[in-house]
């Protein structure tokens, strides 16, 4: 199969890759070292491959790599965080015990990231609904729902000067 040029913004930086026409974004990301994006069912069911494309959470196993030409793709590698720190969403998942084996966590984190941008003060029901496309086999979901609430609270706090290092991490 001949390869095709693909140019897009990955975690804030323009990348130029060569991909096959039938490659999914999931495959292309993993082949290029972005291994936070997990390969689960590859049928759109589990959400382990979720990334954010132009502000929207998407299951990267159902996106062709060439579809993101000129777009902006965010994975957990690109979640903005102060040096040596985790992004507030990741920290909340750790603090609330929402990570066990961790396989589903990058997908949940990206779904949560896109969701909290549009729902800064979510109800439990809204959280359940937003996360309905991400599966976790370990935690039983309650700790994940709690982590999303905790993350929402952390993100709504005003930034203390100097604390965030590079500024706004949202």
């Amino acid at each position, binding site marked *: 199969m001949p390869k095709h040029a693909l140019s897009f913004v990955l975690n804030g930086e323009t990348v130029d890759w060569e991909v096959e026409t*039938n490659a999914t974004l999931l495959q292309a990301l993993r082949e290029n070292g972005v291994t936070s994006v997990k390969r689960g069912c590859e049928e759109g069911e589990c959400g382990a491959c979720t990334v954010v494309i132009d502000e929207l959470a998407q299951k990267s196993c*159902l996106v062709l790599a060439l*579809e993101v030409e000129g777009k902006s793709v965010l994975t957990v590698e690109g979640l903005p965080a102060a040096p040596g720190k985790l992004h507030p969403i990741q920290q909340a998942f750790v603090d609330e015990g929402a990570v066990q084996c961790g396989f589903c966590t990058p997908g949940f984190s990206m779904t949560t990231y896109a969701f909290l941008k549009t729902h800064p003060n979510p109800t439990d029901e809204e959280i359940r609904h937003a996360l309905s496309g991400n599966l976790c086999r370990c935690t039983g979901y309650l700790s994940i729902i709690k982590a999303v609430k905790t993350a929402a609270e952390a993100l709504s706090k005003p930034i203390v000067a100097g604390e965030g290092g590079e500024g706004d991490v949202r």
Partner: protein
Amino acid sequence: MKAFDLFRPKDLFQAFSRLELNQHETVLKSGGTDLLIWIKKGLVSPKEVVDLSSIDSLNEIEVKEGEGILIGTNVSLNRIIDHPEMKRRFPALIEACETHSDAVLRNKATLVGNVCSAVPSGDTIPPLLCYEAEAVVQTSCSKRHLPLPRLIIGPRKKSISKTEIVTHLWIPLPKADLSVGAYRRASRRRALDLAQAAVACTLFQHRGERDFRLAVGALSPIPVRVSEGERILNETSNIDEKIADRVADAVLKAIQPITDVRGSREFRFAVTVELVRESLSLCLTRAKTEEGCY
């Protein structure tokens, strides 16, 4: 996934030229949530995929006051759900969209794609039948409106040719002071599962006149309207439980459910009665409580 070429046209002109060149070995893609799975499973093996998602002009929801709403093939289900006019005018469709897959997949899955998949369980098809939606079917030199019952002619079968594209859906705006509706489906889990049975019930009210419509999905080779059920409802001023039972009987007579991995024929008959009662009762309650929303 099996190899295929990918063509990403900038506009419809490029898309039609490609289809005419390659007609038998090409398939169309909107969101791709069905198509990519079908290719992965080997159910279709196209030589080339023509990806309509690269055509910006098909991204729009256009309201033509007093006439109808035009929805481009790239409009995702979440955009339909978030569109205030769609919510106000076509509530049963919104409820069906909210039932479809999950909140993330709905960023990718499109309304037109759901119709074009033409599967018996396609969630948006029963409400679209109630709202008498039409497919806008174009070739490089023609354009026609095809009512959905003439587009979808069998499980996964459409009546259009390989050089035609469903560029939009057109949903007419009927004259009404009030539009309420409900979509109820049975499935094994709430998200990420296909319907075992589904019922859409809609009601338009205009100056005291009522117009009920009723359609079912996953209960016959293609989703269908149940005209006998609609007749009973439209001829009755006081709809009580007895009437609801008569409507349910009419629905049972109109369907041919099968036994498959998602449920048995017997289960489908039984659950349909409940879904009819539920959707009708929701529709009536909503008619009482909603403000004149048209």
